[in-house]
């Protein structure tokens, strides 16, 4: 998958648990798990905005493009 979600790295840097983040950005822990495990097919701008706001980071810190070999 060319787009990698590095949410767990950012969460570890900010020392925030999945449950706390899910509550802060108002999504279910199950949906956060889908996002964290790179199983999501799309991310809404509103979700991305909430994550960036909660983790005080840029979208580029969470999303990474990796070229297919």
């Amino acid at each position: 998958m060319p787009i990698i979600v590095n949410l767990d790295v950012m969460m570890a840097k900010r020392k925030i648990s999945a449950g706390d983040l899910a509550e802060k950005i108002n999504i279910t822990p199950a949906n956060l798990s889908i996002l964290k495990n790179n199983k999501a097919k799309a991310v809404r701008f509103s979700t991305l905005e909430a994550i960036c706001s909660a983790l005080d980071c840029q979208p580029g810190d969470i999303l990474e493009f990796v070229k297919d070999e």
Partner: protein
Amino acid sequence: MNINWTKERSLAFTRFLTISFLVVAGALIFLIPFITIWYDSVSGKDPIVIVLSVCFYLCDIIAIVALWNLLRLLTNISKQELFTEKNAGCVRVISWCCYGVAAVFAVLTFWRLLALIVAFIAAFVGLILRVVKNMLTAAAEMREENDYTI
């Protein structure tokens, strides 16, 4: 008016009809020999008891398979599982059942030309169900994409 109540009642009625047809299809297994003999006696044409019995038995088996899949489909609908690959699979099987009946009646056309009408209708219904199946598959893909949009 309680819409939910009407929906559940409608589903229950459809399930009742499907089970009724399933019972009739099951009973036909024992009745087909009598029906074919009776048909031969009133038709006044060349006797085709064996051909007719084979065709009717094949169609009865196909009908039971189709009705069973219809029942599975209704169970999934009552569980609110609408646009899934499982349901698309059920509709696909029912569609192939229609084509099966069309093939059986197409063969029967060699003995009774009127069977061509039944074959045509069955093939047409099969075609419509195939389009419904394609639509369900597309809807299942869309639902999955929507479910995985966070």
